[in-house]
């Protein structure tokens, strides 16, 4: 007995699902959706409503997976709801100021979201999700429109953010609708590689291949049109299951980047892959939304210090906002003073801090804890249910809050841990380049949600782009015939997928994952340079040849996790290629090049694209507002109306 693993292998019960590695299942459909989150469900539903055959492939369980699988508390960008006071066109067409650094937000996604966010919310209402205050629990509250019973969040004046009363049930509602419409759902199947016409890189996308993570069986999906709605990559820089807090706040561990890696290998253009996220809301410390975070779910909760002294709220210019009303009509800029850490160091405020729910008016308290915390992702059970069972009384108790640099740090003055690359929430990270049809540069391949490069839409962005891409894919599918996949492409992918099965390896997937993340922290971390990035590429390649080729796989679940590590190697390589290509630092991209330290020189205010062409790396570029430049029309509205597909 060399080690305990051997002992356990010999005595372990057998895997509970029937295992059949490599057995082929072939499915033919008109529209294939890869990724069963919010974007994928809306895409599939909208394609199916147009009368085409639709299949959805999901690595987890469509009923609950995705960034909003555990719920949604507010639905933003609902600019077309009957109470909205903000005109999306005015917002979209604000004149660009000379010399201003771009935010690198995808204007196509943004505009589609502003136009269709409300429609998507009405869609889910029709499916059975009650988002309005149907029981009049909040009658008379300043955030409620008494005629429509819509409740608004954050900004009670502009009225574009809508509280979602039963948001915890959003995915089960979408799932039921998929079934009602006859969409074929293939859960527990991880897409591993796209099928291209003739097996050629850059060719038309004609479906995908995948592996069942319970049985190990192989799947071949033939499709006329494919919509990629997989998650943004995550877990690239940090991996630990021992460091608790990791799993409780950090992104869904299933968000690996298969979509980006698959599309990359097929020849798709990706952009902003060099973007980092820097220190962000949430770290390694506390349950998500479980510590009174007043800039999001707990907005606009009053924060007090250990002696009950209230922390002032300020606007962007530093003006103190004296009343609660000022906070809720000023959301874009209202926050507890960012000088708080300094004030604590000077002894003016005493730790620990608390979110003072009891001091809030009843309707605000109930909206914050009962509605928002009660329905946001990962909060109904983990926070509302567990805290209240454990004795927390929102009417009487003040929750301890580690409020430093938003809710990033620990309690006190500790700096937030630098990390980057997150899925969910839509933070304008790396992903696929799309046009006004939400089509990628590859014929037959559409994208929606966080899979789109620079997508910053969050839940409504996923829903709106999903319904749009579903329409476009359905329309395209009607124009093409079935194509026979290339047998060689299938055989090569099968060889890759099953290479590790039965191999006498000595490294588990967790060590492999941690090793890849370590390389990315060291060689592609906060401070980057040409030499370090190139050394990082060497390390990744070396790991692929050595440790990745010695990783063992003992069941289909470990096969999944091992293949995810191979995906992370690919995603990491793309990130380094993109980082090498951007030879300038950038503040909005949180991108720091030691060898090119000057931030945002005007000539670098552009999107860089990376792709493979005949196996070779190709770097391209796009203007920072390419979506309103030729060949497109000069305004968002014109492009939208020409492409949105609502006329047919």
């Amino acid at each position, binding site marked *: 007995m060399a080690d*305990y693993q051997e*002992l356990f292998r010999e005595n372990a*019960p057998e*895997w*509970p*699902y029937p295992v059949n590695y490599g057995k082929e299942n072939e499915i033919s459909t008109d529209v294939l959706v890869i990724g069963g989150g919010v974007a994928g469900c809306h895409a599939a539903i909208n394609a199916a409503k147009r009368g085409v055959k639709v299949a959805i492939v999901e690595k*987890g*369980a469509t*009923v*609950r*997976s995705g960034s909003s*699988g*555990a719920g949604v508390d507010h639905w933003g960008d609902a600019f077309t709801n009957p109470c909205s006071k903000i005109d999306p066109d005015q917002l979209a067409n604000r004149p660009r100021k000379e010399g201003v650094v771009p935010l690198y937000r995808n204007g196509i996604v943004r505009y589609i979201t502003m136009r269709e966010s409300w429609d998507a919310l009405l869609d889910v209402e029709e499916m059975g999700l009650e988002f309005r205050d149907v029981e009049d*629990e909040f009658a008379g509250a300043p955030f409620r429109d008494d005629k429509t019973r819509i409740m608004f969040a954050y900004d009670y004046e502009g009225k574009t953010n809508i509280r979602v009363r*039963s*948001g*915890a049930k959003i995915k*089960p509602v979408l799932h039921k609708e998929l079934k009602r419409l006859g969409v074929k759902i293939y859960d527990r199947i991880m897409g591993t590689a796209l099928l291209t016409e003739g097996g050629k890189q850059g060719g038309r996308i004609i479906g995908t291949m995948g592996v069942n*993570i*319970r049985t190990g069986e192989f799947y071949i999906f033939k499709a006329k049109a494919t919509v990629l709605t997989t998650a943004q990559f995550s877990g690239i820089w940090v991996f630990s*299951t021992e460091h*608790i*807090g990791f*799993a*409780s706040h950090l992104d*869904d*561990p*299933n968000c690996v980047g298969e979509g980006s890696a698959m599309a990359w290998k097929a020849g798709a253009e990706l952009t902003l892959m060099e973007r980092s996220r820097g220190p962000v809301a949430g770290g390694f410390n*506390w*349950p998500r939304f*479980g*510590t009174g975070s007043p800039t999001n779910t707990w907005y606009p909760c009053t924060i007090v210090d250990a002696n009950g002294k209230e922390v002032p709220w300020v606007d962007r210019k530093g003006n103190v906002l004296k009343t609660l009303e000022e906070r809720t009509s000023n959301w874009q800029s209202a926050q507890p003073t960012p000088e708080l850490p300094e004030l604590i160091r000077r002894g003016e405020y005493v730790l*620990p801090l*608390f979110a003072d729910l009891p001091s809030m008016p009843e309707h605000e308290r*109930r*909206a914050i804890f*009962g*509605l928002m915390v*009660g*329905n946001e*992702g*990962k909060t*109904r*059970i*983990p926070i*509302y*249910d*567990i*805290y*209240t069972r*454990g*004795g*927390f*009384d929102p009417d*009487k*108790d*003040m*929750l*301890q809050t580690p409020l430093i640099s938003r809710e990033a740090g620990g309690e006190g003055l500790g700096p937030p841990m630098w990390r980057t690359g997150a899925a969910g929430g839509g933070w304008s990270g790396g992903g696929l380049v799309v046009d006004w049809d939400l089509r990628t540069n590859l014929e037959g391949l559409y994208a929606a949600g966080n899979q789109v490069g620079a997508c910053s839409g969050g839940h409504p962005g996923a829903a709106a782009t999903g319904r749009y891409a579903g329409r476009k894919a359905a329309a395209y599918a009607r124009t093409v015939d079935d194509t026979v996949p290339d047998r060689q492409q299938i055989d090569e992918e099968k060889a890759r997928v099953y290479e590790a099965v039965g191999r006498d390896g000595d490294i588990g997937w967790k060590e492999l994952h941690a090793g890849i993340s370590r390389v990315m922290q060291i060689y592609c971390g906060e401070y980057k340079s040409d030499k370090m990035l190139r050394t990082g590429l060497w390390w990744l390649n070396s790991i692929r040849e050595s440790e990745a080729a010695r990783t063992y796989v003992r069941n289909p*679940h470990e096969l999944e996790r091992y293949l995810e590590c191979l995906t992370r190697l690919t995603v990491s390589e793309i990130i380094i290629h993109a980082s090498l290509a951007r030879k300038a630092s950038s503040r909005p991209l949180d991108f720091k090049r030691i060898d090119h330290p000057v931030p945002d020189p005007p000539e670098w205010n552009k999107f860089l694209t990376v792709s493979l062409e005949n196996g070779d790396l190709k770097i391209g570029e796009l203007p920072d507002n390419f979506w309103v430049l030729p060949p497109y029309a000069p305004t968002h509205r014109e492009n939208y109306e020409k492409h949105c597909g609502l006329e047919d």
Partner: protein
Amino acid sequence: MKMDNKAYLVPNPATPCLPIRIDPELCIRCNICADQCRTDVMVHNPVKGEPPIVLYPDECWLCGTCVEDCPVPGAIRMEHPLSQRVGWKRKETGEYFRLGMKDPPPPYTRPPVG
């Protein structure tokens, strides 16, 4: 206290140890929890008619949907790992409590909105 001198050759426990707990008395063996889990933290029991096994507690995202979707209240529950348990102060009395403490204050029973 009666000590059993029998000891076992076992690896270290995964962390967190048991974020998800199934009560075999209440569990109706429907496998909904296992089948709705995005991460496959639970697997069906190889022994037919037995509750699912929490096989990969270290992969749990602590989202709680297994608890939400369970048809039998109390049959499955989630617990935050010890390092994740928060504290709070009762405004009127200044008493300090925490999640998981011995003799906690009584539960607050009003359900969430929606």
